């Protein structure tokens, strides 16, 4: 069972954008998709350890700010080189305007 950790308020993230969330020495990225849903992934690119929070959300893709590698942040799937390794994803739930990330 994941432990649900409060990450942010829903209106902390603009639609089609992301923020960085640090917890317990790890860093995560929380996304607000254009369809209004929220998602969470590991916060650093699998190519070279760069924070994704400065990247660009386009639809359901996150583009890394360093070399423009892309992931589908819903599944973590690497979509555009130079990223080859998928991104870890985490479950998310929204309750009363708060976004929780499920960590094990």
């Amino acid at each position: 069972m994941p432990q649900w950790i409060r990450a942010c308020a829903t209106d902390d993230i603009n639609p089609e954008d992301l923020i960085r969330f640090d917890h317990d020495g790890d860093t995560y990225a929380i996304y607000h998709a254009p369809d209004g849903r929220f998602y969470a992934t590991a916060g650093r690119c699998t190519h070279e350890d760069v924070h994704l929070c400065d990247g660009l959300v386009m639809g359901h893709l996150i583009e890394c700010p360093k070399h423009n590698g892309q992931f589908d942040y819903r599944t973590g799937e690497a979509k555009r080189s130079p990223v080859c390794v998928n991104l870890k994803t985490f479950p998310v739930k929204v309750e009363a305007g708060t976004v929780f990330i499920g960590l094990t």
Partner: protein
Amino acid sequence: MTAAPFPVGQRDYSLVGPDSRRAVEIGLASAEWYHSDVPRAVMKDLMKRTDGPAIRDTILWFALLIGGAWGGIYFWGTWACVPFLFVYSVIYGSSCDSRWHECGHGTAFRTPWMNDVIYQIASFMVMRNPVTWRWSHARHHTDTYIVGRDAEIAWMRPPKTLTNFLALFDVIGATRSLLILARNATGRLTPDEKDFVPESEWGKMILAARIHMAIYAATIAVALATWSWLPLMLIGLPRIYGSWHMVMCGHLQHAGLAENVLDHRLNTRTVYMNPISRYIYWNMNYHIEHHMFPMVPYHALPRLHEVIKADLPPPNLSILDGYREVFASLRRQKTDPEYYLRKTLPPSAKPYREEFHTLNIARSNT
């Protein structure tokens, strides 16, 4: 961090030599680079992708290519073909580089397949393996002008001025590129290539090289069958006789500036250029801006420049102004390879990681 400055002495620019190991040891490899502060909302707007500007520019690109080729063929054998082939060759042999570059970053168009199609065409024109160069260019962005890490350092110290300026009609570069493609086509990769291209991509590298070589072989066959230079003047040779603009702009990017620093303001040059050069070069004259924020498309770079220019060294005011600076610096580097031009940051700018160039700063001011 109190890392020692990079040691003085002979540099080893290979990616598997002692300088490469030293760069990793002292924290210069894959490091955190300086970024000017830009509010997130402004940056999001600058990064926004759109197809419009690149479609417009690409229609013009193809029109110039087709028009130039038509005139070259129609007037072949008379002086009237010269202006047509002049335009054709610059569009083929110079603007291919910027199209390759921007579409390789995936920022020129919003639609991914458009970036991919133009990337493949431009890679062929510029005689670059489309797979290898995607990775070497990623390394250039990670470790810009870090000795032993960056595979795209054009001006190694001490500078070989004659060799580099012979490259103005890129005979050496194009020949080298062709030999690399020929080697890749036979399935052979160098240790450097194996260092920066992941193994999963090696097969694609070899396939791409074979396709490029097959097109060149077919062009040579047509030239022999028709006993005419014309096919080669249209495919292959423009990479040499039309590359002068690419080389002219490319040398301005980093030549004579610092190596082994983590701040693009000090190892990269922004140069104001005329609109024709900016079309051919797709605004890469805003080169500090591009390196600092590679996600900003070429058409938004002038706007980005306005946003961050107070944090950057003053730009060079023209191509000529840039070359004055480059030549002065290279002249010094011929006798003193440790010398580099230390770009002056405005008083409002933030310094960054001074420890990496303390030694070089002292030398550059002597």
